């Protein structure tokens, strides 16, 4: 964990603070004037804006064919959450901006109803009246009884914080896509089941009708047909037709994966716990798409036995029938999976955006330290695979992975791909054009580049137009059509090849200005990452007139940015900054009327009038490719960027002016606009871990930090105990009571270096005698002390292996372990520390351990410290050099050397370990005397 403890201002303990930690109040004269609103029970991070709900939540609504838009459920499912916020009203809003082409029916030229497998659409909406901003994910589910077989739904993440939605757009989109994919998979399954039942019904009906007709035929000897007979025959014919139609539908729904798999942007949902392996296995297997079909069919094949019933010729009236609920629409397993996923999303993204971003930044930086990060980082974090691997073809999830992918590709295909994405991003926008696009999709996109571009942009226009007419006070802040995973830089790189976007952009801009509606479509990027940079840069300005930049000029201005390697782009950037900030100033126009006039001088410096620097942390994006070496050979300017805001490292920032515009937006607008960025803090300031995998460990961290703090305050011999852990000597916490022992183990576990990317070598509770194998595996063990004969064995084993272990006796409060005289641990665990919060202390520990890691890294990877410089050099001089380095260069004293040496051994082992081979855990030890410490 890299994040500095300073950040912790935004975190809050959930558990009650101990009496012990409450300090006497400061004398009056020393006290700092409180935050002006403190008397109202607010805090500096409190939301001033007028949102009517208390915290972020997820809303699922449906555009019902019977009653129109209606909210279905919220996550968390708590009335308090939405408060006075009008869900119905908001549902109406969000359902009105559905860009999905949910077109089902009889397309011209096809005999049967055709199912369309539509992509989800992703939109960002803002409702300034309600103070609500939402990421909205539209999707359609199939329902045999619904009109056109489809039911439009949407899932929305609603927050009072606009910045959170905008900055976490990629992440939200990715997570919601997973949920949506899961829901749709379940829906397809349910739909197929339903179809099969219906088919059986129809089949049965046909048999019955057929029999009746036969009987009538026999009974009828007059030679002409009665009306009754004709009616029956017609009925039979319609049933036959219906059967064929349903069969066709069934075929279509079953062929879904087969069709989809061919497309690059399809990302199958993989349930966490694979429901049935063969299915997911096939889903994963993109190349052998032939296999996928039987797999999928098999999934649908498990239909419980069903007794068919007779279908009446006339179906019930549309409004009489009760539509299926969402739960009924989806296979129950997938439905619960989806809900789980949505709960995860809620848990992940609640809390302050600042925390989210910091966490993402540190996470991304940590990912790069792939040599050392296993030592003290969360095991779960290390097990995270780049999402690319988990969800193949899922877009924008991992800039890193995608970047790598794109850097591997030669320039030529890059263009093709970006064009493809361009197109696919737009593909589902225009309702009427879809057939055409589907057709043009089939051949590779190598044809007429400019034409397609033009076409796409036309679609974009259409798209926007559509949204304009949809409501009054809703701002569409951004939309994303799901599309193939391409980073912005990629599409940028490809842009110089395709000259057309400039006119297209300006066209968009001009269209926008026509709208006198109060709906503001702040961005309708097909996908954030897909939008060409210049388009993105200009969309805010597109809202208002662009009096000062005409199309030509705009093109000129933005062109330099398209080249990421441009060495002299610094000046350009300053120019652009100027320009862009103006733009962004304009875009706020609606909220703060004084910016309606272009103010070119504003926002030059990242300070507002109060002289307060207001740069929220930027979302971390992929650094330049050069930085990705395992040693991350740092660019010369990393000194400047070493902090939390890796502007320099951020290629997106370098090239894209969007961030600039955004930050300048904060700068220029009055303070409320920035305070609102922390809106959600007021409601729920629990630090929200930015990743799902971390969720459970977050609480654990806090608890561990708290316990550790208590430990170092309570036990004067905390230092040697921690030294034992850091130097790889197994520490055994011996005690009668499980709770006490486990508490101590939890406290101490934050000091235990991992031996590999596997589980943390901590065993909380053991009751059987220990063996030497246990010391190999575990570095921190909670051991039960028993009075029974079995307990004697336990103690006997302990004394036998006493040379490998340090023993902390929780009952008699003694510690038996080697002497520690170093200085490192005292910084790590100062019993007079002013830190009071568990999570703060945890971060403090992590930052010191990170320092330690870097020392170990240096020590491990200095060639001449371990190997002779020349062949003749004796071993002793190498040893001398090594010790000198440790003592002088790294400033380590006494036992601290052993800590670094141990960590270095772990690094070596980790590095040289062959992935194919299992690790052979080895136990290193020293023959050093132990001492008994007492309180």
């Amino acid at each position, binding site marked *: 964990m890299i994040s500095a403890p300073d950040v912790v201002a935004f975190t809050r303990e959930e558990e009650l603070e101990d009496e012990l930690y409450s300090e006497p109040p400061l004398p009056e004269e020393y006290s700092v004037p409180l935050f002006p609103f403190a008397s109202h029970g607010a805090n500096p991070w409190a939301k001033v804006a007028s949102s009517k709900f208390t915290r972020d939540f997820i809303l699922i609504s449906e555009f019902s064919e019977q009653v129109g838009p209606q909210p279905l459920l919220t996550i968390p499912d708590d009335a308090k959450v939405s408060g006075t916020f009008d869900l119905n009203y908001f549902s109406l809003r969000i359902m009105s901006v559905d860009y999905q082409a949910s077109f089902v029916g009889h397309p011209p030229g096809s005999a049967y109803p055709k199912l369309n497998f539509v992509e989800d659409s992703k939109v960002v909406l803002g409702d300034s009246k309600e103070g609500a901003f939402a990421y909205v994910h539209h999707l359609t589910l199939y329902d045999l009884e619904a009109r056109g077989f489809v039911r439009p739904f949407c899932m929305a993440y609603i927050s009072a914080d606009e910045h959170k939605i905008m900055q976490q757009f990629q992440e939200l989109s990715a997570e919601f896509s997973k949920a949506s994919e899961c829901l749709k998979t379940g829906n397809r399954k349910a739909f197929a089941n339903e179809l099969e039942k219906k088919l059986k019904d129809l089949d049965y009906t046909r048999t019955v009708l057929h029999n009746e007709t036969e009987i009538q035929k026999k009974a009828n000897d007059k030679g002409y047909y009665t009306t009754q007979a004709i009616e029956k025959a017609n009925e039979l014919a319609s049933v036959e037709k219906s059967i064929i139609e349903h069969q066709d539908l069934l075929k279509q729904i079953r062929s879904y994966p087969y069709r989809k798999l061919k497309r690059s942007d399809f990302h199958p949902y993989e349930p966490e716990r694979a429901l049935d392996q063969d299915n997911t296995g096939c889903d994963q297997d993109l190349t052998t798409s032939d296999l996928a079909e039987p797999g999928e069919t098999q999934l649908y094949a498990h239909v419980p036995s069903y007794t068919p019933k007779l279908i009446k010729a006339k179906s019930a009236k549309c409004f009489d029938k009760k539509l299926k609920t969402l739960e009924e629409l989806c296979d129950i397993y997938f439905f619960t999976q989806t809900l789980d996923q949505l709960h995860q999303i809620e848990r992940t993204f609640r809390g302050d955006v600042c925390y989210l971003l910091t966490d993402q930044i540190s996470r991304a930086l940590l990912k790069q330290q792939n040599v050392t990060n296993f030592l003290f980082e969360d095991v779960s974090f290390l097990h995270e695979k780049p999402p690319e691997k988990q969800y193949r073809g899922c877009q924008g999830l991992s800039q890193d992975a995608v970047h790598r992918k794109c850097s591997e590709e030669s320039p030529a295909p890059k263009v093709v791909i970006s064009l493809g994405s361009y197109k696919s991003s737009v593909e589902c926008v225009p309702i009427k054009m879809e057939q055409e696009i589907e057709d043009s999709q089939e051949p590779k996109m190598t044809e007429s580049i400019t034409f397609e571009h033009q076409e796409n942009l036309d679609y974009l226009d259409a798209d926007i137009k559509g949204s304009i007419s949809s409501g009054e006070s809703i701002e569409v802040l951004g939309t994303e059509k799901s599309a193939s995973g391409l980073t912005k830089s990629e599409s940028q790189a490809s842009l110089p090849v395709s000259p057309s976007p400039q006119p297209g952009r300006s066209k968009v801009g001009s269209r926008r200005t026509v709208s006198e509606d109060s709906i503001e479509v702040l961005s309708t990027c097909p996908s954030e990452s897909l939008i060409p940079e210049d388009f993105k840069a200009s969309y805010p300005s597109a809202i208002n007139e662009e009096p000062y930049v005409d199309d030509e000029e705009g093109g000129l201005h933005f062109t330099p940015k398209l080249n990421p390697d441009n060495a002299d782009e610094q000046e350009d950037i300053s120019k652009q900054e100027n320009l862009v900030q103006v733009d962004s100033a304009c875009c706020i126009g609606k909220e703060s009327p004084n910016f309606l006039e272009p103010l070119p001088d504003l926002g030059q410096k990242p300070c507002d009038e109060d002289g307060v620097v207001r740069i929220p942390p930027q979302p971390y994006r992929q650094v330049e490719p*050069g930085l990705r*070496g*395992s*040693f991350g*050979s740092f660019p010369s300017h990393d000194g400047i960027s070493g902090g939390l805001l890796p502007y320099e490292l951020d290629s997106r920032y370098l090239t894209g002016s969007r961030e600039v515009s955004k930050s300048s937006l904060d700068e220029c607008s009055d303070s409320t606009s920035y305070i609102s960025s922390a809106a959600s803090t007021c409601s729920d300031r629990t630090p929200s871990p930015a990743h799902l995998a971390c969720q459970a460990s977050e609480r654990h961290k806090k608890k561990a930090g708290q316990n550790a703090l208590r430990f170092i305050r309570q036990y004067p011999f905390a230092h040697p105990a921690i030294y034992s852990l850091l130097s790889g000597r197994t520490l055994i916490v011996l005690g009668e009571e499980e709770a006490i022992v486990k508490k101590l183990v939890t406290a101490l576990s934050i000091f235990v270096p991992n031996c590999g990317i596997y589980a943390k070598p901590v065993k909380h509770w053991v009751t059987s*005698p220990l*063996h*030497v*194998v246990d010391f*190999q595996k575990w570095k921190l063990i909670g051991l039960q002390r028993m009075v029974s004969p079995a307990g004697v064995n336990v103690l006997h*084993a302990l004394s*036998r*292996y*006493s*040379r490998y272990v340090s023993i902390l006796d929780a009952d008699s409060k003694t510690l038996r372990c080697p002497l520690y005289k170093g200085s490192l641990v005292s910084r790590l665990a100062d019993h007079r520390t002013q830190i009071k919060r568990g999570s703060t202390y945890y971060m403090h520990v992590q930052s010191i351990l990170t320092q330690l890691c870097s020392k170990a890294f240096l020590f*491990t*990877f200095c*060639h001449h410290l*371990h*190997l002779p410089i020349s062949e003749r050099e004796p071993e002793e001089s190498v040893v001398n050099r090594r010790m000198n380095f440790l003592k002088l260069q790294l400033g380590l004293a006494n036992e601290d050397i052993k800590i670094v*040496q141990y960590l270095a*051994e772990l690094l*070596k*082992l980790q*590095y*040289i370990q062959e992935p194919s*081979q299992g690790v*052979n*855990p*080895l*136990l*290193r*030890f*020293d*023959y*050093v*005397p*132990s001492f008994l410490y007492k309180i």
Partner: protein
Amino acid sequence: KSSVQTIGEEQIQNPYTELLVLKGHQDIVRFLVQIDDCRFASAGDDGIIFLWNAQTGEKLFELHGHTHKITAIAPFSSSDASEEKKHLILTASADRTVIVWDCTSGRQVQKVSCFHSTVKCLTVLQRLDVWLSGGGDLCVWNRKLDLLCKTSHLTDAGISALVELPKNCVAAAVGRELIIFRLVASNEGSEGWNVLEVKRLVDHQDNILSLVSVNDLTFVTGSHVGELIVWDALDWTKQASECNFWDSSVHPDVQPEIKLSESPNETSVQHLTSDEECVFAAVGKGIYVYNLQMKRVIACQRTAHDSSVLHIERLPNRQLISCSEDGSVRIWELREKQQLPAEPVPTGFFNMWGFGRANKQANQAAKKMQENTPVYFLELVGDLIGHSSAVQMFLYFGELGLATCSADHLIILWKDGERESRLRSLTLFQKLAQNGDLQLKF
């Protein structure tokens, strides 16, 4: 009475600061045998033979074939002039079979299952390119596993130990008897051998447990009641014997009552090893160093371990390693007492004399030394604690470390931590160079 010497936790001279636990066996591991510089085989009561890499601890092969526990194992390397060296091992099991394994491929080469009783010992006579199996009878086999000849049934107990002697002879310990067999080239076949019983030596009072050949002239046997007899390897005569290690004449402080109360187990000669000068005997819980020239015990550690010493080995660096039923392995060093009053007797001194003439001199020397205190003593240099049950055997691999096997089903590789750390660094930088990570990326 005298408690076991302990060394404490500070062991400066103990080089083994790293250990690797090798898991695989499901029962007591009794045998370890070295195959080549970096490989060894282990076998035990589960009937499985494992081949290990002594450097990395990697499990190379798992050899299945025996249905009962392994009773004997012997390396059988062929150095055929033409081919490259072929490493084979022979294993005998309680299922009355002997299997030959190829250590390179991990395959069973051949299996012999015509035994009437369990083979308890295997000896390879490299010189004659034959191997012997000893059980209820003694069989002689050639490399192709043809039975060349066999003795008649000896006893039900069978041969417990075999040792090769000069002049195509072998000494077999059968109960309390020591039988000398000679291999005689048979008249008919070119490759045939006949085995003849030459002599029976019945000097031991109890079962012979250990048998070791010191050099071409001498071999030593040890029995269950603590008799140690030095034999002439050529004419099979008794040269010297020591039958009271615990005797008050050597250790005047020991009371006779205590001697009586001692169970025979505590005086049995479990294992013998030797270098040119001395025979090292694991007797009961103690270790005794018997000097062949002086014909007396020159140093001893009467309670070296908490229970019986099962195996001892002499290291090149004057160190001695012992392992015991108490689960520990101890490293000893044979040191000369510094405050030697008389002029130090050079070790080469006695070697100049023939055996017959040395007697008188030796007596004199012995007398002289008895006046002084014992010249040598065994100092505990370090101990290795890892096994939770009896350590059956160990194998010294020089700088690669030490492998120990135990009744707790484990094999532990003890290694020099410093050296391993250095090796890892070396590997690390090799791998870095291989991955191209060493190039600067500026």
